Each structure stands twice: as structure tokens, then as C-alpha cells.
């Protein structure tokens, strides 16, 4: 056996790959579901918090800033472990899926809030004044004038952060979530062969590369001359 054969036998073992392909595919489906749930709820919650913050109610803003800073400081892994192992003692036992989803959504919410907020405050004050001077209300101005401009400013940082946090679905392995990495590492233990890990890596590429490319397209599509 040459060293090349030994390498392919270890990392690209066709027999092992074939055997564990269904597991990896199942992991992919779970990862997609989890990622979709995290992105939808995290971005929505972040946007809602940013809009609430725009109302300018002091105590509410302190609370928002506290929550946001908390979840921006905590490593997502710590949040997952706290929710999965900590919440049951408070009488609520979320599943591995729910724990991972809640954790990543909270972290994405925190970062998204900051990004949306930055977009809202960096929209020139004159835009508010022009809109309000024509009789538009606060909410109408926010919705029709400020947000469309803020969202365009936020697309690049937001897609980056969303991708980074969504890849954190792999952290679900610590609470035995059967997503891609979980499936791949248990397959590796069972087969005494690291080929499933390579399949896992390929699965992440298949999932996230199109997202990265799509994000790039969206960024160019929505940039406009000022």
C-alpha cells in the first residue's frame, strides 16, 4: 500500500462513504431546517428590537442594549449548553434542536439588532426631517424612508454575520443534535475511518457556498448610487 492509497483509504473510502451517505444527508436536512429557523427568527427578532429601540424609550433601550450586549459577549456554545443543561432545572426541557435553535437565534438577534440599529442611525437626519415635514408619521417615516435605506447599508455586514452564526449549527453536536457534524462524527467512530468527516465538510460546502455567493449577489444588487 502506497502512502497515497493509505490517504485515500482513510479520507475518501468509497465503501464507508456509501454506507454513511444516508446519515449525512439526514444531517443535511436537519441542518437546513435549523439554519432556516435560526435565520428567520434571529433576523426578525433583531429587526423588531432595532425598531423598538428607534422609539427612543429610555428604560426599554437600556434593556435592549443589555440583552444585546449579553448575547454578543457569550460564546454561542456556552448559550447552547446553558439552555440545554440549565433550563431543565427551571422546569423547561428543550430538545437538542430547540436548544440549538434558541441559542443561535438569540445570538443572531443580538448581532442583527446592532447592525440594523447602525443602519437606522447612519441614515441622515435630514431624511427624517424631510419626511416628517410632509406630514408622514414616525412609523411611516421609519417604514417607507429610513428602513429601505438602512437595510441597504446593512446587507453586507448582515449577510456576513448571518453566515457566521448559521455555521454555528455545528455546535449542536455538543447536545447530541443529529446535524451534519454530529452524524459525521458518530459515523467516524462507528467506522474507525475519517471519510464521513470529509463528507460532512462537503455537505457544509454544498449548503453554504451558494449562500455566500447569493449574499454577494444581493450586496451588488442592492447597492445604489447616493
Amino acid at each position, binding site marked *: 500500500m502506497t502512502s497515497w492509497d493509505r490517504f485515500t483509504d482513510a479520507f475518501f473510502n468509497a465503501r464507508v462513504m456509501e454506507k454513511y451517505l444516508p446519515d449525512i444527508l439526514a444531517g443535511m436536512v436537519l441542518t437546513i431546517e435549523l439554519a432556516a429557523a435560526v435565520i428567520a427568527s434571529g433576523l426578525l427578532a433583531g429587526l423588531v428590537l432595532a425598531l423598538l429601540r428607534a422609539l427612543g424609550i429610555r428604560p426599554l433601550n437600556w434593556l435592549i442594549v443589555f440583552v444585546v450586549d449579553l448575547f454578543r459577549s457569550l460564546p454561542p456554545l456556552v448559550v447552547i449548553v446553558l439552555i440545554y443543561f440549565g433550563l431543565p432545572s427551571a422546569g423547561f426541557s428543550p430538545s437538542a434542536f430547540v436548544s440549538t435553535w434558541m441559542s443561535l437565534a438569540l445570538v443572531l438577534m443580538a448581532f442583527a439588532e446592532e447592525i440594523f440599529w447602525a443602519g437606522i442611525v447612519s441614515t*441622515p437626519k435630514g431624511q427624517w426631517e424631510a419626511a*416628517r*415635514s*410632509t406630514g*408622514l408619521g414616525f412609523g411611516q417615516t421609519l417604514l417607507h424612508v429610513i428602513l429601505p*435605506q438602512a437595510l441597504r447599508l446593512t446587507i453586507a455586514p448582515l449577510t456576513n454575520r448571518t453566515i457566521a452564526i448559521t455555521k454555528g449549527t455545528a455546535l449542536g453536536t455538543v447536545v447530541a443534535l443529529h446535524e451534519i457534524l454530529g452524524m459525521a462524527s458518530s459515523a467516524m467512530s462507528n467506522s474507525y475511518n475519517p471519510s464521513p468527516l470529509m463528507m460532512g465538510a462537503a455537505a457544509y460546502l454544498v449548503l453554504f457556498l451558494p449562500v455566500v455567493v447569493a449574499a454577494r449577489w444581493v450586496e451588488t444588487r442592492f447597492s445604489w448610487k447616493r
Partner: protein
Amino acid sequence: MRLMPPIVSAKAIHKHFGPLHVLKGVDLDVAERELVFVIGPSGSGKSTLLRCLNRLEAPSSGSIVVDGIDMLSSKTDINHARQRIGMVFQSFNLYPHMTALGNVTLALRKVVGKSRAEAEVLGRAALERVGLADRAGHRPAELSGGQQQRVAIARAIALEPRVMLFDEPTSALDPELVGSVLAVMRGLRESGMTMIVVSHEMGFARAAADRVVFMDDGLIVEQGPPAQIFESPTHGRTRAFIGQIQRH
């Protein structure tokens, strides 16, 4: 002399920004169809006064009545009141993500409640009045500064305001573009619009203004017909200011 009550009546307006006392008791009445020019050194409070009239700034004390509406009463629907007071800004403040027509029709649709089709008819008419009917589909970034400011004027007049406020409308423009904006303002003037203009376009003031108001240090120092203010001001501060700007 005036038979009609003033359409804009500001009394004893004070405005503090923290420790700064920017307006120190300003009274200003403006009659219907009158064009009042407000001049004065920077920091004299003229822009702040203008912005108090439609409550973009809330005065610290005083009273403001525009077209019979008490602008400072908490019972006043301020969004409704602001429809009657058009405002044009130094930096245009067009919505960059919308076309010229989109800029002009937004408030017609969302505030007045017109359908999109109705709003577009009115919006095109307003653009026509500022000579930009052919630019309806252009974004602000595709227009010159003078065109942008004329779209901003169209955005305000589309709502058929009773009063128009101009806050240094030509200060951000290249000199060769100033004329087109002043021409639109002259047209508005001829149509009988009541206008309050903060500007240093002295030629326009002489030709079109009914009254020139000179402000300094948060107070109206002197006011009168343009010829009187420019040729024979009675106050030393007015004289010094007029002398300074005419040297340029």
C-alpha cells in the same frame, strides 16, 4: 393696514439647546401671499426659527399659529398640520431610494391617502411646475443639485401647502444652478404662495421680497421693505451685516 389675520403668527418664541439660548423672544407675523426674507449672520437663530414654525424643533416657550392651527398644542395632529406647511432644505433631503416621482408622491399616498394613480397625476403636475416632468423616473443621484432642489420643492407643493418655508435653498448649489431654483421660487411667488425664506440671495430678496427680516443673536433686530433694509438700515448691526455680504 392688514385686513386679513396673519397666516403665520409666532409670538415670544424662545428656544434653548441645553445652555444655548438660540431664540430670545421672537415675534413674527406673516400675511397671506407675503414673501418674507429672513437674513442674519450664521448662528443668529434664523434656521431654528423656521424649523420651529412646523415644529421640527419644539420651541421652549411661545406660541405659533399657522393657518388657524395652534402648532404647539398637544391636541393638534401635527402630521395633519404639517401638510399645510411645505419645507425645503439646504441639503435637499430627497429620498435616494425613490425616483423623483416617488419622492413627490409618497406623502400624497401615505398622508393624504390618494391612490397610487391619483398621486402620480398630482405628482407629475407638481414636477411639471418645477420644469422637471421629463425627470419623473430619475433617482436623485441622477439629477443635478438644482434639479434635486426643484424636485424637493415639487415634493412640498404637491401637498398644496398654505405656506412654504425655505431653509437656505440655494446655499448648497453651484452658482450656475442657483438661477433655476430661484426661477421656480419666483413662479411660486407669482402664484400667490406665502413664503418664508432664509437665504442670502440678496438679488432675489430685492426683486421678490415684500419684507426683509434681519436677525442677530436670537432676536429680530430690524425689519422692513428690502429697499429700506438694504439701502438705509437703521441699526448698526444690520448695516455691518449688509456691508459684509454685499462686499462678496
